[in-house]
């Protein structure tokens, strides 16, 4: 049996990596009148559909995809959400 899943993958810069784009956006938000904003970090959002035998299989495949291509472990972390499609 195979199931279809929808996945949302978030790739973010590791905390130790300076994010100049995040700093620029934070400064923009402050200039717009939001002084309460702190620590803006910009990442990537990837979504996909995939077919897997079950949820564990889908997660395993997603971890592989993230480790091998979607994120670079030297500079990035990732996490994902998985929803089974009916």
């Amino acid at each position, binding site marked *: 049996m195979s199931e279809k899943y929808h996945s949302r993958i978030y790739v973010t810069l590791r905390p*130790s*990596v*300076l994010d*100049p*784009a995040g700093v*620029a956006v934070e400064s923009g938000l402050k200039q717009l009148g939001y002084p309460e904003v702190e620590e803006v970090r910009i990442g*990537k959002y990837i979504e996909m559909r995939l077919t897997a035998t079950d949820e564990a299989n889908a997660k395993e495949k997603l971890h592989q995809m993230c480790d091998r*291509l*979607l994120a*670079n472990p*030297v*500079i990035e972390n990732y996490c994902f959400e998985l929803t089974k499609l009916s």
Partner: protein
Amino acid sequence: MKFGIIVFPGSNCDRDVALVTGGLLQQPTRMIWHQETDIGDVDVIILPGGFSYGDYLRCGAIARFSPIIKSVVEHAKAGKYLLGICNGFQVLTEVGLLPGSLIRNSGLHFICDRVPLKIETSDLLWTKSYSKGEIITLPIAHGEGRYYADSDTLKALEDEGQVAFRYCSSAGEISARANPNGSLNNIAGITNKTGNVLGMMPHPERASDPILGNTDGMRLFEALLNKLAGSVK
């Protein structure tokens, strides 16, 4: 000596390199499309600058899965010479042949400029024709050239003498002010542990032809030629 220049979709400095190796140096030079896999005939592989696969996802991330890369890795593991310039350097870090990563310039801008560089060691094959501590000038042109590695990796690079070039002031001072892109330790180019793989963000091929007014980059190619002339049939 035979040079091979790998061409990815989006490479744009491949012919500049060929003008140096095949033109100025009169060495056999082969353009190698990324779908090829047989590079056994080539002594030195060069991954040129450009925007392979449009820099999609991350610079060099997709090029890493090109069919040619397996052969490039074997070429490097066999101790043969491999040079990655600019995007080629980014590809080498993604492949894992060189440690660390190249990320967005700290000032966010794409930088196209000529910058002073300090030769950190002349013990490397690549820097033999320079002297240690010498200041040279090479062009840079990149948006993602900020060298980053975790502190352990950085320490290992420094301890092992793997840093080849550092951004500096015209007087040779290594400082934040003389760092165009925010690279850690002002790193502009590094080698692998065995020294046969070099990655650098500056473009030596753009400073080789005398009509361009600067030949500081030519000496890198000449050193390679002198070294290999004796050892290659």
